[in-house]
């Protein structure tokens, strides 16, 4: 509450300021939700990374183009050796950090090798731990040496957290935010206001905005009100909030493929889900299109067949899975449950929709005699005490590219293998995919892995959800794409 009052005071103060300065300066206003309680860090690889700000102050080596495929950012080109164990990266020249120092291969070495530092406990370590070392070939060339072949390295370098920081800056980066991005940190206060100013010497051209101001507003309803009152230019929405903005000429609402998802995870190491037939029977009777319609509305997501891979990922498998109640009944009967089966599913009121998701599944599953007892666990500690502990639970993931999620959540023994899936054939396909340099070949393998998950995996994923954001009408240059696709130096405010 106190935070809300402070935020409200800060906003009203800021508004007075705008009125006077508007003509002179283009100030873009956003809110941060304080979901890390003020620990939001400017260190891009911290578990509490302040990613909205980090996206603007740092650059990656590789970014995605509008189709989600790797495109040059600080790296101008990348090539690997025949076995995909060594990657040579050519770097942009003439790029400087906000403190004036030049960006070169030594910074790449420092940034990438730092990810593995056990003291930092970065969540990225589990994704990029196969980077053995980085060699500085010359200031404009770095060589990334891998401990295992990986043909998809550029895709992983696109991760929103792999952002270049100056060599040796690890101790101070969490508060200085010195990067090569289009905006520089003027002041940093995640609980109050964080102010960014344009980096006039940004290597892709000077940004069109003068300033970006982030105000901490923890409550989603308060953020909405601030947006309504014209105190913010940009805000993310949930589906329920759309009607307030949709028909208002002062705003535009964007609906973009994002790929976050809820799932229902059955532990493959726990009876009765040790039987692949039962796992499949749990997943195939559901009308996924109807489930998506009930949960997020038509056109606000992409239905899928348990692929965890984000909807616009080039490696996503094109699967089709119309509801198959007869098939499910048959599988249940074969597995010894001709009269249906009683199961318990845990969920929690943790994220909006997490309980409803279970309720919709409960109704859908009832059609084939799967009688679901819903147990509502306390939200507090759900990820520690319930998820990966109970036999069946609702899960929630943000969008991840194919190689990352297929390894992170399904490879035998990986830390977040929530269904305890263990299939060496599956693991070998992923190893092979990583080692396959040819794009079409790698795609075939990743898609094969997703087909295996649909046939016998333990995770039910009916759809990937779109992202929703609202912008004031004067905002230009933000495409309806996920946050890390936005090219912030091109964003402008043009009053209409």
């Amino acid at each position, binding site marked *: 509450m106190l935070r809300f009052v402070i935020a409200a005071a800060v906003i009203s103060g800021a508004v007075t300021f705008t009125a006077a300065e508007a003509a002179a300066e283009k100030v873009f206003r956003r809110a941060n939700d304080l979901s890390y309680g003020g620990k939001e860090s400017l260190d891009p690889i911290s578990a509490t990374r302040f990613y909205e700000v980090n996206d603007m102050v740092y650059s990656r080596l590789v970014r995605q183009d509008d189709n989600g495929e790797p495109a040059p950012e600080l790296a101008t080109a990348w090539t690997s050796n025949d076995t995909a164990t060594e990657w040579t990266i050519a770097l942009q020249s003439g790029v400087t950090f906000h403190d004036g120092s030049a960006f070169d291969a030594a910074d790449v070495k420092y940034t990438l090798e730092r990810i593995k530092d056990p003291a930092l406990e970065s969540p990225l370590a589990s994704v990029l731990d196969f980077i053995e070392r980085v060699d500085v070939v010359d200031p404009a060339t770095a060589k990334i040496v891998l401990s295992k072949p990986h043909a998809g390295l550029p895709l992983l370098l696109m991760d929103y957290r792999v952002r270049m920081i100056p060599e040796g800056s690890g101790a101070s980066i969490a508060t200085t935010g010195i990067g090569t991005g289009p905006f520089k940190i003027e002041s940093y206060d995640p609980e109050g206001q964080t102010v960014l100013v344009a980096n006039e010497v940004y290597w892709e051209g000077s940004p069109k905005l003068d300033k970006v101001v982030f105000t901490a507003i923890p409550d989603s309803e308060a953020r909405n009100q601030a947006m309504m009152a014209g105190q913010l230019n940009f805000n993310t929405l949930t589906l*329920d909030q759309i009607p307030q903005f949709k028909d208002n000429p002062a705003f535009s609402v964007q609906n973009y493929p994002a790929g976050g998802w809820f799932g229902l995870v059955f532990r493959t190491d726990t009876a009765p889900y040790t039987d692949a037939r039962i796992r499949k029977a749990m997943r195939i009777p559901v009308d996924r299109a109807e489930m998506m*319609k*009930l949960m997020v509305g038509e056109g606000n997501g992409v239905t899928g067949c348990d692929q965890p891979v984000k909807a616009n990922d080039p490696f996503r498998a094109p699967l089709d899975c119309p509801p198959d109640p007869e098939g499910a009944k048959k599988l249940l009967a074969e597995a010894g449950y001709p009269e249906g089966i009683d199961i318990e599913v845990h969920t929690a*009121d943790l994220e909006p929709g997490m*309980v409803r998701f279970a309720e919709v599944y*409960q109704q859908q599953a009832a059609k084939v005699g799967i009688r679901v007892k819903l147990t509502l*666990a*306390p*939200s507090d500690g759900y990820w520690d005490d319930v998820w990966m502990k109970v036999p069946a639970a609702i899960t929630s993931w943000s969008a991840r590219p194919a190689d990352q999620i297929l390894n992170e959540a399904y490879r035998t023994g990986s830390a977040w293998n929530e269904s305890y899936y263990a299939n060496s054939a599956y693991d070998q396909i992923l190893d092979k995919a990583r080692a396959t340099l040819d794009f079409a070949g790698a795609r075939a393998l990743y898609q094969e892995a997703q087909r295996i998950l649909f046939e016998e995996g333990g995770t039910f994923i009916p759809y990937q959800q779109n992202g929703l954001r609202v912008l004031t009408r004067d905002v230009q240059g933000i495409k309806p794409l996920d946050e890390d696709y936005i090219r912030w130096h091109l964003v402008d405010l043009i009053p209409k």
Partner: protein
Amino acid sequence: MTGLRATLAYVLRQPSGAVGLVLVAVHLLIALAAPFIIPYDAATQNAAAILEPPSLTHLFGTDRLGRDVFSRTLLGGREAMLISTLSAICAMAWGSLLGIVVALAGGLLDAAVMRVVDAMVAIPWILLVMLFVAALGSSTAALIPLLGFSYGLSVVYLARSAALDFVARDFVLAAQVRGESRWTIAVKELSPNIRDSLAVQGAMQWSWIFLAVSSLSFLGMGVAPPTPDWGQMIADARGIMRTAPWTVVWPMVFLSSLIIGVNLAVDAWAKALGIERLGRTPQS
């Protein structure tokens, strides 16, 4: 029975008492008749009828899953009423028994037991219940003893102080001199005298427990879907209060009218019996 009829007549003569009693009666009637009068199955989802405003097809509109809000609202108090009734009985039973026993025993036992009760009362009930729900999981079977225990604590105070008024009276002393057992004294001498206070307290406990169950359901720890429940309905619809008010207004109206009704009726009843209603202890 004339006593009961006189009390009822007294309650009905007071406007607030009459309103309260009518509200409670209507709620009881709805709860009993609901399964036979609801037009739709309360759990059936309909993707083609999401968030429809009230109409003749759906009197109270539909919710985010296309379910009929009218049917859900009519059914939404039943489970919580059942839990509250059983919990209140449980709370009254152990609370009064312990209160009377320590009042009769006095001395060290009284002091020791009451300090333990003091300490327990200091823990907010919701923390206590959340702790147990976290450990045992949420189910009706687990909630009843939990709420019964936690709300019984304040009954111990009431029963003890009500009994203390009588333990030193001549008829109790006489019974003791006659050599009657403590149990007989408690049942035959004390109970008839403190019965009214306890009954009023029991009815109040019921409404507090009902609110507690609704709060737990609101927090996702009470009545589990697909059973509809007012607290759960309010929690689910609170984010769309402005754009689809019908999803949240009806469970609110039903919940508050029930609680207000019980309170008005119990106040009038306490007045009719000539007893001061016990104020809410920190426990409640």
